[in-house]
């Protein structure tokens, strides 16, 4: 584990370098003193108990969650100046509720191509080829014209991976890709990720349990209570959830991350509002496992 006392010179070959990163959510420190360097071609699993901050960390790395302290570089460029988003692919946690209007599998995957498309230009041949290839890798080419809502949860997760894949990024962030996915689909997912790795992609994924992904991982980072507790060769699932790695603290932490309330308005529908709600949903779901 690298713990540099001073900021190191930028290294464009390093996909991710976070130095002394901290994240607070509404004034409450969630991540503290996190150092994480991911080299090109690494397959890193961010693990840890519920509420340990692993999802927050991946969201901070994608810029969705602003750092309150520390320094984050993607491909050697500080996050504020980073514009090459076509080099980054993000697979968010699958949200239960679909959107209000039907969308086909092909359309969702095609939206992943936006990072490489100019405004008001139609899809080119290269775009269509990349979309077709992405569908092929996740094994859903035959479902391209179907509505996303007609797929099972595991297949929807694979659609989200294909969407990230369509932009042909070098660096993938996946937030709990296996959560709530049945075993056959987990195997299909692992197969897709194996192909990505063979193509030289750098992969950072958040996982509660690795399951079929275990053989692919070449480095595990275990979070505990907002800090990095372990960074090294992969661990077996039962080792990660050893009491030393903070399972005992999980309920304590979720209680702390209690709902953010701004006023006395009953919290009815608000599909696109605060991001922290997303985190809570994740915590709730993780808690049931």
């Amino acid at each position, binding site marked *: 584990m690298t713990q540099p006392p001073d900021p190191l010179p930028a290294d464009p070959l390093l996909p991710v370098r976070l130095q002394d990163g901290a994240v607070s959510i509404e004034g409450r420190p969630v991540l503290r003193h996190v150092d994480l360097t991911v080299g090109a071609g690494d397959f890193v699993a961010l693990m840890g108990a519920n509420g340990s901050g692993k999802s927050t960390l991946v969201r901070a790395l994608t810029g969705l969650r602003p750092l309150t302290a520390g320094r984050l570089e993607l491909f050697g460029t500080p996050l504020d100046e980073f514009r090459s*988003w076509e080099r980054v692919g*993000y697979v968010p946690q699958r949200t239960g509720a679909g*959107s209000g209007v039907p969308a*086909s599998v092909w359309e969702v995957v095609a939206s992943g191509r*936006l990072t490489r498309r100019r405004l008001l230009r139609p899809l080119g041949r290269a775009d269509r080829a990349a979309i077709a290839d992405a569908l092929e890798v996740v094994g859903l080419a035959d479902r391209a014209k179907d509505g996303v*809502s007609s797929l099972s949860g595991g297949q929807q997760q694979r659609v989200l991976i294909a969407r990230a894949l369509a932009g042909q990024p070098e660096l993938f962030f996946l937030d709990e890709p296996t959560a709530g996915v049945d075993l056959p689909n987990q195997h299909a997912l692992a197969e897709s990720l194996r192909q990505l790795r063979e193509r030289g992609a750098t992969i950072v994924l958040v996982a509660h349990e690795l399951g079929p992904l275990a053989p692919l991982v070449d480095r595990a980072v275990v979070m505990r209570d907002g800090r990095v507790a372990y960074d090294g060769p992969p661990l077996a699932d039962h080792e990660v959830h050893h009491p030393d790695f903070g399972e005992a603290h999980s309920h304590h932490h979720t209680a702390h991350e209690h709902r953010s309330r*701004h006023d006395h308005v009953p919290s009815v*529908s608000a599909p696109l*509002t605060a991001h922290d709600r997303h985190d809570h949903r994740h915590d709730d779901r993780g808690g049931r496992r």
Partner: protein
Amino acid sequence: MTPADLFALPFMQRALIAAVFVGIAAPAIGTYLVQRRLALMGDGIGHVAVTGVAIGLVTSTSPTWTAVVVAVLGATLIELIRERGHTNGDVALALFFYGGLAGGVLITGLGGENASTLQSFLFGSILTITIPDVLVTMVLATVVAVLCLGLAPQLFAVSHDQEFARVAGLNVRAYNLLVAVLAALSVTVAMRTVGLLLVSALLVVPVATAQQVTRSFRTTLVAAMGLGVLASLGGLVIAALASFRANVAPGATIVLLSLAVFVLTWPLGVWLRRRQRARVPFDDEVPADHAHAHDEDDHAHGEDCGHPAVPHGDHLDYVHDGHRHAPHGGHYDEH
């Protein structure tokens, strides 16, 4: 006067032109509002625009333009409040609903304006539309439709998954504001046709109708625009033909016609969704124990055997009287 004479009248032709453009533009932006579950946003903006109309009437400027300005401001504010997340989206909308309507009524009264003038904006008066109004309608509706179709990939991505769009490097806030402004423009465009209180119907109902039968976003968008034109033209024609016998408001017939189309399409949508749900693969794991299915007179499941075949992991389950039969060797297992 025959119906043919009626459609030859200049005011009727102006009304027909306005109806076509409104029918195209309103469902186009409405599709994005429905996609992000903000179907009532058009209503909120419509109520805010009442204040804009009242300001126009009282200050003797064009109510259309004051409505455009106030509606755009209102839509921007609604969007910013929603984005902050301090109040739920629907509560923010509600606040604007009542403030806008009350402000409009108050200002009209203070200015000593006749309430019936305001009413022509609340419920539409497409037959009194002037040539400059038709031109404004055509220009604004074209802007809305062109941006909704031209920026469809970006607007789709932002409305479908905001976080993914942010990581893809899109300026999510700018696109959200664009949707709000386009919604405000289409509300003021539709104001003369169906009126501010009914405007949301033209934004939302054609979309709701289209998505009963569609599977993709693009077909929903295009079908909604077609249904919008059908409803606004059809409603206007019905009102014109009925005017020989009774006093029929075109705004009302337009909205009721699009609702009628929805009611007709809805059972089809229910049936399609039922059929689709039956085919969603089973996600659970295959049971380890082999419980043999009951013997069924040597019935062999297969293609077209009459039992729905649903993917389950690496094989198919046949749904049979509420049981799931999975082929296993020479018999069927219960899954």
